[in-house]
């Protein structure tokens, strides 16, 4: 009986989730947000844009985690010609607001403006074609997997009363779809945990074969800001990163002036 009561409580709690509190919006924060928007919109100088960035960043530093705030910050960095930080913040916004059209549009635009375009290797392209759903956003796959699973149970439920071959076939298809999407989603989350995505933010980054400048460089030219990579290993202030084209190499975590070269999303 107690277990039943507990389960009921959990189910009810999930049915009526606690609404997000609007207590985060204080007058001071609202004023700073508006000021940052105005500064970013009407900025004529770098100083003004830097002021807007500072305002947006201060709101984030206060613990506000919101995709649209990161989106605005990314826009401000883009106006400042800092493509690395722009793409970084748009990616953060995308992870918080998946499917937001404005974020997707700006991210695609920022990517098109990058100096280097890393083409995935042919084998990867074939895999992408075969497992095309793995390219969909992880949250989309997650929802689709759950929906397919729920449909599978509903079809099974109907099959208790109506025995039709079509129902059996449909339920098997739903289960297969749910499994394919669930495995794909799990792999994405696992990969994200193991190899966190990151963005190169330094204007130019030299990529070496090993964790020292004595090693050969991986590319003929330094990589420009905005390249999206995955972090494979961290060793003594050097990070081993994987590029979308299959290459990997080592970069410093910080440049000689103490500025970050690469930032995790």
């Amino acid at each position: 009986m107690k277990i039943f009561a507990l389960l009921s409580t959990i189910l009810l709690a999930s049915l009526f989730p606690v609404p997000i509190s609007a207590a985060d919006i204080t007058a001071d924060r609202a004023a700073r947000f508006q000021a940052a928007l105005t500064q970013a919109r009407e900025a004529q100088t770098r100083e003004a844009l830097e002021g807007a960035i500072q305002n947006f960043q201060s709101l984030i530093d206060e613990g506000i985690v919101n995709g649209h705030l990161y989106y605005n910050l990314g826009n401000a960095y883009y106006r400042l010609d800092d493509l690395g930080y722009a793409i970084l913040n748009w990616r953060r916004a995308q992870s918080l607001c998946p499917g937001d059209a404005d974020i997707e549009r700006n991210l695609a635009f920022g990517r098109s403006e990058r100096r280097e375009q890393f083409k995935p290797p042919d084998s990867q392209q074939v895999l992408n074609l075969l497992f095309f759903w793995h390219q969909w956003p992880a949250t989309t796959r997650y929802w689709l997997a759950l929906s397919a699973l729920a449909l599978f149970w509903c079809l099974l439920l109907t099959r208790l009363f109506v025995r039709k071959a079509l129902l059996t076939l449909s339920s098997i298809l739903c289960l297969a779809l749910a499994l394919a999407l669930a495995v794909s989603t799990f792999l994405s989350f696992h990969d994200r945990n193991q190899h966190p995505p990151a963005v190169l933010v330094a204007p130019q980054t030299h990529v070496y074969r090993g964790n020292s400048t004595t090693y050969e460089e991986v590319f003929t030219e330094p990589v420009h800001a905005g390249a999206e990579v995955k972090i494979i290993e961290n060793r003594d202030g050097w990070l081993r990163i994987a590029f979308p084209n299959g290459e990997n190499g080592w970069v410093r975590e910080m440049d000689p002036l103490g500025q970050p070269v690469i930032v995790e999303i």
Partner: protein
Amino acid sequence: MRKIVTLCLMLLTGAATLGGAEIRTKAEPESIDLNDSFQYQLNIINGKLAETPSLPKGSYTIGRLSSGFQSYNLYGRESFIQTYSWSITPTQGGRITIPAFQVKTDDGATHKTRAVSVTVRSAQPWDPRFFMELTPPKETIYPQQTFTLTLNIYAARMPGRMTSDDPFPKTQRGAPVWPTLTIPWLSGPKGFKASDYNEYLNALKPQTFKGFTINNVSGGFFGQTKAKFPLTRKAINRKGPDGVTRDYLVYTLSRTMMAAEFGSYTFPGVTAKNYILYPDRDPPYKEIFVCTPPFSVRVIPPPEENRPATYTGGIGNFSITTKATPTKVNVGTPISLEIHFQGRGNLATIAPLVLSDQEAFAPFKVYDDPQVGDLNNPAARKKVYIYKIRPTTDTVTEIPRVAFSFFEPVKETYQTVYSEPIPLSVKKSEGVGDATIVTQNNTSPRKKEGQELKSTGRGIQADHSSLNALVSQTPFTPLGPPLIWLGLLPALLYAATAVFVTWHRKAHGDPLKKRAREAGARARRKMAAARKAIRSNDAAACYSHLGACLKGYIADRLGLSEHGVTNAQIRDCLAGKDQSEETIASVLALLEQCDAARFSSTAPTAAAMQQEQAKAEQCLTALRKAL
């Protein structure tokens, strides 16, 4: 020899006859002097490690790792050993222990190694007649900054006629025996650049007869002996470390280095060991083992104070030149502006200048995303950035000078250098406004009627202005309410329904049970028919219904055939259900009376029929409770 030792090891341990892997560690030699190295060996007998092990850190530096694999066939039984060997250099004297650590073999098993200790002989800071002084650099230096480490070796002069001789003993054959120096940083430590080590040693003019042995460097034509370095020497009179003034011979060794990478670095002390001549002593020499104290250096970034806006990370000494093509243009025509950086320093890490920030470039539209030129060759000490600029007005007469700042590590100040301005001829553009040319890359022709509009694809979307942006969102997590609602709840619902349907089908599928459940309703219907027959004074129908009501109820409840059931069967069944004799007797009597009344020649009165009907209802109530 190594193979024999390994073989013996296997025979002694009997590892070859056992199935599982065995881990053994050892250090050779077990006793060394400070600044010397020992080999730490990890043997995996009859097994392989899943991954290359890493040693725990301690008061020692871990050198190069070498590994090997050997297999043996002893009396038809194959065995093998995997070996990892590290060169370890202790950083302090005393008992140094390499603690036990865990390794994982390829069969998934985890093994713990044995801790191994080595005794390291500590050096004395000085001897009254022999000591060393090292001039360290400043505690904090900048990258590209050079400094010279000077090692002075003081050896007290001998008295009398030997006063001008080097105060070191000789062998019986007359060969001089000078101290052996171990200078760990001489080859250029990590994070610093120094001249080529071999060239440096050759410049010290090594000999084969007399001089200091340094870092066990080999000499002779075939490298069969140790090279000896007669360092420059001079005589001085000074106080020794014990406070007594003596005449000393000073041998000096200098090494110039340049800081290359940021960080904190510790330079180990220099050790000297062997014998020196000692007057008034028998034998007239003494063994010494002395060491200078270690020192630390921090390589820090250039100061932020007074850092010019045109500083982009250059540390060293550079000059800057510019080149532009074409130099005769219209307003808006793109000009390729090459900026060449030359000089000594960190050319590779100099970031591009932000030309649009330089006031002199105000009449130009500058694209601050230059290409790196082909001359980007660190060996040539040259770096080129190629910018695209467009003049925005025809009043421009020159490409202005470009300012570039760098940090000069020798003077420890920022310096700004300028390129020469380049004369430029700019004409007004015809037909189109100047601003249009500069700000718009593609001028589209006038749109025809019915022509489909195409997206420019340029620019970013507007900012999000709603204050909802200040409300924290919960990052997506797969273990949330959706999983409960769509993943678990339908499954639970299905399970509950399936259990219910199974139970329901089991409960309602048996016709006997269904008949028993519906017995009461049927009995009530027959009782109603009997009442109707009483009202119409139809005795035959009344008694027929009453008999059928009781008999049918009993037959339905007990699963008997209604038409073939006899009074004897009813008696046995009711007795089997533990009914009282009184109930059984009244039921049977009523049934017999009903049979008799149906065929009686005299018609009973309505009152008699009602009395019988009341009795039948009492019996039915009793049977309902009982069955």
